[in-house]
């Protein structure tokens, strides 16, 4: 584990990719309905709490992932498609960091950014726009990033990652060539819960927030929505699974759950053998600070 990087992210990381050969497609989706989740805590307490779906006005990126009276709250607007095949394409092709534009309703033409995946694709907008967007509004997502690979790093697998986001997450290379990836928190292998066995290109992995630490120090981590985090001993090349010696990196995009085996949700961005990646502790590694246009 490296040390804290001074002064935030590097302007451009020395990380050649195949981005110039990737296809950009426009996918439509609708903002989904909000859910009221009936949830039972390990202590047996039953509650009904705001759940996934709909439009979350508050909290947003950079705010605490765990402090809210909610269950699996999703950052921003949750987007899906009624046709299962189109929904699957949206789920697989949309990448974190992609641009989204509202097509109709009072927020038409406002731009936002894909920030994660759960049952839906999650898109955040300026708060003024989130106050105008509602379930049923139509969006277009400019999907770009499926198939992304770091040149010469065959064992490093990327999912749902806009090339600009990869460049921003990376902190260059170690002298031995390993890509440096900036993360705000590190989860122990016991943290992995619901989401195991599911496709790493879709959905996300629930992580027990009590098992997160600040990389390098071991101190408890204050988790925020949008943080780039890593979890140990997870192989996310295909479906999410335990594999000693691997790791997965992703973005925290849904809030905590009171239910056992659930927690904050990490949408997968990268997976590799642990010795092929250099994780760098950086408390600023959060989508809150990511400006896609400035990184392209």
């Amino acid at each position, binding site marked *: 584990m490296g040390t804290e990087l001074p002064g935030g992210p590097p302007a451009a990381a020395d990380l050649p990719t195949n981005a110039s050969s990737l296809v950009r497609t426009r996918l439509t989706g609708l903002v989904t309905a909000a859910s009221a989740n009936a949830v039972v*805590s390990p202590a047996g307490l039953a509650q009904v709490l705001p759940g996934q779906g709909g439009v979350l006005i508050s909290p947003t990126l950079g705010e605490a992932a765990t402090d809210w009276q909610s269950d699996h709250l999703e950052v921003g607007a949750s987007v899906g498609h009624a046709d299962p095949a189109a929904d699957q394409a949206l789920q697989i092709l949309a990448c974190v960091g992609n641009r989204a534009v509202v097509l109709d309703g009072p927020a038409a033409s406002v731009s936002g950014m894909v920030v994660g995946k759960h*049952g839906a694709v999650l898109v955040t907008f300026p708060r003024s726009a989130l106050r105008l967007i509602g379930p049923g509004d139509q969006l277009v997502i400019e999907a770009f990033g499926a198939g992304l690979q770091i040149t010469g790093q065959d064992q490093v697998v990327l999912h749902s990652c806009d090339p600009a986001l990869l460049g921003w997450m990376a902190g260059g290379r170690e002298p031995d060539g390993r890509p440096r990836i900036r993360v705000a928190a590190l989860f122990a292998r016991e943290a*992995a*819960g*619901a989401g*195991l*066995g599911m496709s790493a290109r879709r959905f996300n992995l629930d992580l027990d927030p009590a098992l997160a630490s600040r990389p390098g120090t071991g101190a408890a981590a204050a988790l925020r929505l949008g943080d780039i985090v890593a979890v140990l001993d997870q192989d996310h090349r295909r479906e999410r699974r*335990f594999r000693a010696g691997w790791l997965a990196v992703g973005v925290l995009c849904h809030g905590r759950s009171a239910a*056992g*085996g659930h927690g904050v949700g990490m949408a997968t961005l990268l997976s590799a053998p642990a010795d092929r990646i250099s994780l760098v502790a950086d408390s600023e590694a959060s989508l809150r600070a990511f400006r896609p246009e400035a990184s392209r």
Partner: protein
Amino acid sequence: MSRPRDNRAALVTVAAEGIVAPARCYGDPAGTAGGPPLLPGCGGVAVGVHMGDELDSWLGDHLMPGACVEDRADGQPGPGSLHLLACLGNRVRLGSGEQLGVVVGKRGGLAPGFLPPSLLAVEAPDALLERVCPGQRVIVETLGRGLLLPDHPGVCLANLSPAMLDLLPLAVRAGRLEVTVRAWFPPWAVSTGIGQDAWIGDVDIADEEALAGRSLRYGDLVGISELDSSAGRFRRPGYVSVGLVCHGPGTQDGHGPGVCILLSGPADEVTCVQGAEASLGPLLAELAVGCNSRPSDKGS
């Protein structure tokens, strides 16, 4: 040493309706591009596959023995009242009234919107399985919700009918419940199914290292350390869960043999010991064959 007392006299038997599930396919039908091969296992009727068989003796994907039964629903069925009430050992009859067999497993149920169907496995003689068709109506005599052990208040039971409870190798030693299991797994070996209600589906054991050299059979009891299954299945140091192996390996990463949870509790109230009598497959196959002549689950 003795068997624990239970409250079976207070339990209610409810007939719940289901249908024999169609066989469904997921994943890449061509099995190309290095993906897993497409194998049978989700739904339908597996003639010739029975409790007690070695999991590795069949080429399947989450294969369960006998007939798969699910709630009647429009579209893809979730875990409905049949799935939520059914317990292992419950008797199953065809819509015609003819006895079919007994419930011996559950699978499915990841989360709403994410899930393959929630299925029950019904063990039955081949002569009956050869005549059963997907779509056919079945009635499950559900019995077991509410079952508990009054002298072991920390122990939570799930998916257990009184008939199944009687088959479990349980003993009370110095006030603690002792369960015999075939195999014992660490918490990180447990994968898909974490975070879901213990009454829905199963959890998969998905670590090759932990499974190496085990040759598990349908109907084997297994123990899992640091897993609490009282309110959802989740990691909790100091707790253990015990379940029954009811489906075979899966072809995808993070999937493997499936375990239907039967009980869980604090490790200082439940002890697991390893022993050969924890292979319940033959007893369950026998129960299915004999269910025509059994007067009632509730007899003892």
